[in-house]
Every structure is written in C-alpha cells, then in structure tokens.
C-alpha cells in the first residue's frame, strides 16, 4: 500500500487550524473580540479557522490518497530554489545588475547550458535589457547595492 499523503496534509491543515484559532488569531489580530458580531476584526478569521478545521477533518476521513507517489523537492528543484533565495539576499548588497548577471549565469549553467560564450552573452545581455526597460523606460528605481555606495 502506498503512503496516503492526503491524510498527512489533512492532519497538518487540521493542526494548523487549531493553532490558528487558539493562538494565532488572539495574538495576531488587533482588537480581537471587540465590537460585537459582524464588527469584530477576528469574526471572519475565526470562521475561516472553523471551516478549515472541518474541511481538513472531512478530508482526513475521505481522502483515498489517489495522487501519484510523490517525491517532493528533487535536487534540481532544491538548487533552483536555493539560487533564488541567494538572489534575493545578494541584491541589496550588490545591486540589481551585478546580482542578476551572476545569478543568470549560474542558472544557465545549472540548467545545462554548456557553451561558455552563450552563458556569458546571455547572462550579460538579458539583465541589461531588463535594466534598460525597467529603469529607463518605466522609471523604476532598481536596487543599487550598498557595497558600492
């Protein structure tokens, strides 16, 4: 028998809805419980938590786990994700242009582009075209990079 992922997800969602109802809502909603029915800011979130709890319970008992055997986060996906996190992290330091050229090059290599002149050309050309369009035409202020200023 295959492992029933849907049951696991249902369980996680159920636990989440309980935590949501008893901890996150009282803590995260300012002015919870004030103002009476319909006026209180926590009115809707509480109903959502109840709906989530009942649906996930139902899901737990009904789910037959028909989904294909799933293997999450293949190595290539993990590296793609890690690279993007790195991109977000280095942009404030290096600035948009430098960070983008670097990340684009690494991505191209990661996805299997092997000819080095293609990598160099594309990873410089594309970020520059994007930069010209957004910064010069659309007048968006892209991150300049704190290391250089």
């Amino acid at each position, binding site marked *: 028998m295959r492992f029933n992922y*849907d049951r696991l*997800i249902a369980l996680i*969602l159920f636990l989440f809805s309980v935590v*949501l109802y008893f901890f*996150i809502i009282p803590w*995260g*909603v*300012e*002015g919870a419980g004030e103002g*009476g*029915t*319909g*006026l*209180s*800011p*926590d009115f*809707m*979130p509480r109903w*959502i938590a109840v*709906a*989530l709890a009942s*649906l*996930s319970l139902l*899901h737990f008992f*009904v*789910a*037959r786990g028909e*989904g294909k055997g799933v293997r*999450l986060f*293949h190595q*290539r*996906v993990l590296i*793609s*994700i890690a690279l*993007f*996190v790195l*991109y*977000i992290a280095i*942009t*404030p330091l290096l600035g*948009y242009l430098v960070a*983008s050229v670097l*990340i*684009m090059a690494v*991505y*191209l290599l990661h*996805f*299997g*582009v092997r000819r080095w002149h293609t990598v160099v050309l*594309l990873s410089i050309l*594309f*970020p520059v075209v*994007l930069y010209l369009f*957004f910064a010069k035409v*659309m*007048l*968006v*202020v*892209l*991150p300049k990079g704190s290391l250089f200023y």
Partner: protein
Amino acid sequence: MEQFLIGLKLMLTWHNVMFALLGVAVGIFVGSIPGLTVTMATALMVPLTFQMDPIPAIAMLLGVYKGGMFGGSISAILINAPGTPAASATVLDGFPMTQKGQALKALKMALYASVTADTLSDVVLILVAPPLARLALRFGPPEIFSLVLFSLTIIAAVSGRSLIKGLLAATLGVLFATVGMDPVAGTSRFTFGYVEMLKGIGLLPMLIGLFAVSEVLIRVEAEVKEGIKGIFIKDSDRPEDRRVSWVEFRRCLRTILRGTALGTFLGAIPGIGSTITAFLNYGMAQRASKHPERFGQGELEGVAAAESGNSAVCGATLIPLLSLGIPGDIVTAVLLGAFMIQGIAPGPTMFQEHGRVIYALFVGLMVCNLGNLLIGSLSVRAARSVLRIPQKVLYPTILLLCFVGTYAIDNSLFDVQAMFFFGILGYVMRKFDYPLAPLLIAFVLGPMLENALRQALIMSEGDIGIFISRPISLGFLLLTVLTVSLIAFRIWRRTASKD
C-alpha cells in the same frame, strides 16, 4: 449607442491600437512557447501597465489573453506540446495533421476558428453585460455575500478532481486575504509587526509566484524525469495542404458555431475554463460527425472544434467580471487586479462611473480580434523559429523576469520574498494535486465576501436570518447547496462503483 460611439473614438487612436496589437503579438509569442502560459504572460505584463492610461493598459492585457489563446495551438500543432493547457484538445488532431505534412493548414484553421468564435462571443458580451449590471446594482450586502459564496463554491468544485481539495484551497485563499488592515475596524491583522504586511499580501506577487515560479519548478523537475522531446516537422509542398479553402471552412462552420455557443454559455459561469469547453466541443463534434473515426487521425474539423471551444470562452468570462465584479478564471482575476491598479473597480457601478472606458474596451476587444487574425497569419510562418528557443535558456529568463517584475510593482524586496513564498506553495500544491485557481480567486474575492458578510450582519444586528429572508440571496444559497450535493453525490457514486 451614444456611449458606444464615444468608446469608438476613445479606443481608436494610433496609440491605443498599437498597444492592443503589441499585446496580441506578445500573447501569440508567449502562448506558443510550451512552459509559458497565458496566465504567466498576463501576470508578467501587468507591472508594465502601471504608467499607462486605463484604456491602452487593459486593451493590451486583453490582447495578450486573446493572442495567447491562439498561440497555444501553434506548439500544440507543430510539436505535440500544447503551449497552454487550453490547447490540449488541439493536439488530438493538430499534431496528426502535421505528421501528414498539413501543419500550415491546421494552423490556419486554428486561427480562423479561434477568431470567429472569439468575435461572436464578444458580441454576446456586449449585449448581455450592461443589462446584467443594471440588475446587479440592486444587490445589497446579503445578495453579494451569497453570490460570491456561490461563485467560489463552483470554482472550488470544478477546478480540480477533488471537491474537498478545491474547497481547502479556497479557504486558504480567503485566509490570505484577511492579512493586513481590517476593512471595517481599521485594525491590523496577521501583520506580526511588519509594516509591509499592513497593506496586505499583494495580488501580483502571489500570482507571479503561484503560476510563473511554480511552473518553472515543476518543469525543471519533469525534465529530469522525461527528457526533452525533439522537434520534428514535416511540411508538404502541395498547395492544398497549406491552406484552408472556403469549402473546408464552410464544412467546419457548424462545429465552430457549436463551439461558440458552448464556450459562451459555459464561459459565463465562473470556474469553467477554456480547457473543459475545448474538450467538450471536440467530443460533441466527433459525435455529430459522419466520420467519427477520422477524429484523432488528423481531421480538420477536430482542430476547428477544439480551437473554437477554447476561444469562445474569452469574451464570455468577461461577462461576470464586468457586470458583477467576479472573475471566472485566473486571467480575469489578473485583469481585475489591473483594473484596480488603474483605480477602476469592475462590477455593476463601473457601467455608471466608467461607462466610456467599458465601451472603449468593447471596441478594443474587436481591435484585438482583428489583430489576432492579422498577426496570427504572419506568425504562422515565423512560428517554427520561436519553438527553437531551448527550455534551459527559457527558465532563467522567466525567473529573472519574475524577480524584476515583482520588484517593480512597489519597489519592494518584501514583495519579491512574498512572491517566492507563493512560488514554493504553488509547487507543493501542484505536486499533491491541490488546484491553484480556487486559492487565487478566493483571495481576490475574500475582501468582498468579508465586507458583504459583516455589513449584512450589521444591517440585521447579528441575525443570520437576513441571508434566507431575501429571495435573491436565498436563491444563490440554495444553488450553492444544490451544486455541492450534486458534485458530492457524483463523486460518492464514482468511488462506490470502484469498490
């Protein structure tokens, strides 16, 4: 009529027409590349419309939508990989035609069927939307609540294989919508001290993450398992294999008209996408045909059936969006966001406050259809070179575009982080077969649902009887219960028969 003439004048400037055509061209281009969907294209185009006036901005996005609908069929026909999910049914006969050397014929048929169905569907939109909006103006909070609840339930029910999974996704969507400033009391909710969270989760970061980023992640993974399919195209030299004659078009006209009727009717119901209509019309055409055995072997009528079915949805999905403010699918949800950015709230009041804009857009739809025919004809020949862009170059390009596009919305890296969070969420949801559309549309409709619910309860001083004592509201609620029980019953019977 007078408004229509004003709209005509507003829309038909060189500037506006150019942007509409640009949209169509981008749509066809992007739609034809497998891995780039229409949704992704519209999502990535929205940040570009910030500085524009409402009319060219929306006309361009509509152009992307329509162009993409046809563009998806190019790769479906040429390389057996639908560029967009809606073109899946086009593969059935389109690719066999290519194998027979009739690629150009199939592409032209797809284009003519698309444009014909789309244009007729737009006419229905122009006729139906204004009176529907007038009716909707009489809706109060209880009616709006019941209507939104009804629409959400249908969307949740039909967009995946499992009713509960759809409903769970929708519930999460409504939850994400509550982040930020409370609309009634003005206090902060789920912001956890972050100032950036006060304005709520942005629609575009969520959208770009859920659809563009997750798509790349899923494809990167799939490629490892399946490898990339090679491209092989045969092109016959015989002229009759390279064009669609008038006689052939007439033969398919019945199918195209059926597709138009089906697509327009189903497209107006929130949640029923163009993929379903394309397959439905394909099935109906096959049943009605004198030679059903030819379907799937490269039958011209099959291409016409699939393409008219999916394109007719384009005009019709705008009916609930413009007249009620309810997006029926993902692309219209994006359009809703684009309208909001322009300071226009789609819905019944839009016809009074921005009547000119609406009529200009009606004209814009027609411009886009003409553009589709024009640019589509040109691109049919150029199509083959587009398909040579290798996926490994495509993915980094998309990821960079997601980054800059999201950043440009608000000059905020926080948005980029949120975008990426939703990218991973979308990836996980797709892996486990949880549909994304209910989450997105529930997120968009969440504030409307909450406001209507709380206003209604304030009106009735906390008595929930207000939802069943008003006939229109009661009607929608009964419809909701009826749909849910029908679908639940069908699923139950299906599983029972399996055991």
